[in-house]
């Protein structure tokens, strides 16, 4: 993602040998953050297939700066792609707590949003927002890769509005680790 100069709070001045740019720290840090969202891929069900398609050549998430990471310690975003069963909930919380701040969560698909077709199941957590704060809800069963792309763009919009004076960008829910203590 390049910088669109017309939409940027930036002062440009030519000096001998090049250009000097003056901008706000908020804009610069947010630009860096939203241009390199590294997601931890948490593929749990069929949504993971669409997520893999989004990483592959036809949709090519790399051009957004989205590189899948295999470890929570290098990840900014957790893509919960699929049905979260109750047995998987505690590993999910544990991995979420290992991610460095600021961290974001996209709930991908109906199951991660609200339980989806398993709304009355005995074994499914009805929405991943019951165990961790969610930034973007993405509907669909499963959502197409274009929809996942749109969700990442919405997250980029959200990151663009963050201010460094408050808790280095983490929301109150993210600070406490979970919306409700389990």
């Amino acid at each position, binding site marked *: 993602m390049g910088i669109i100069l017309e939409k940027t709070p930036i002062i440009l001045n030519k000096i001998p040998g090049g250009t000097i740019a003056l901008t706000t720290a908020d804009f610069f840090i947010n630009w860096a953050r939203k241009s390199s969202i590294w997601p931890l891929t948490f593929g749990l069900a069929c949504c993971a297939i669409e997520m893999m398609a989004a990483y592959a050549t036809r949709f090519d998430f790399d051009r957004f700066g989205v590189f899948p990471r295999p470890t929570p310690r290098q990840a900014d975003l957790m893509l919960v792609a699929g049905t979260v069963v*109750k*047995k998987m909930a505690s590993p999910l919380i544990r991995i979420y707590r290992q991610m460095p701040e600021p961290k974001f969560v996209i709930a991908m698909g109906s199951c991660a949003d609200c339980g989806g077709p398993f709304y009355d*199941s*005995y*074994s499914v*957590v*009805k929405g991943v927002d*019951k*165990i961790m704060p969610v930034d973007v809800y993405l509907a669909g069963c499963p959502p197409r890769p274009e929809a996942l792309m749109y969700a990442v763009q919405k997250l980029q919009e959200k990151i663009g509005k963050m201010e460094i004076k408050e808790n280095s960008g983490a929301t109150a829910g993210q600070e406490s680790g979970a919306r409700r203590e*389990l």
Partner: protein
Amino acid sequence: MTHHTVEDVFAKLQKIFPDIKESEEKIKNYPTWSVSSGSLFKICETLKKESGFEYLDMVTAVDRHGKVNSAGYLTEPNPCVYSQNPSVVPSQSPAPGAGFFEIIIILTSFSMNQKLILVSRVDRTNPEAESLYPLFKSADWQEREVFDLFGIKFTGHPNLKKILTPDFIKGHPLRKDYVHKKDKFDY
């Protein structure tokens, strides 16, 4: 000693175990025999050692609880799968203990290229059956799954404990009279 057809096997088995009979409804058009739960282990042993049914495909169970039509579907669907108030048990559900479990075992003979289904009824109040683990090591996890979801105890199993559901889920979810109690993730 191997037999050429599954009918030969059946005729031979019927001499040793008189309670074995052809089931009224065939499952998937395979030969389906209903056997008593007491002789299930011995029949499997005979089938494995003398008739070449040496591969255990599957162990599963069915809860025949309440009114069921010929296809096996409940005529009155259980209304309390996920009950908001678990203390209220709907009145149309059958009395506890009514009905029975069916343990279903699918065996395969590679030499005869034949599958065989054994159906065995067990009591619903205190369901118990003999484990097939001494015959087929692959019965280990499948019997644990049946134990977890139906609560059928397999005597002689070396490690009979929950395999699928987490520890805080009490009860056996695939029983028709299972009522889900709210746990820490249901709110």
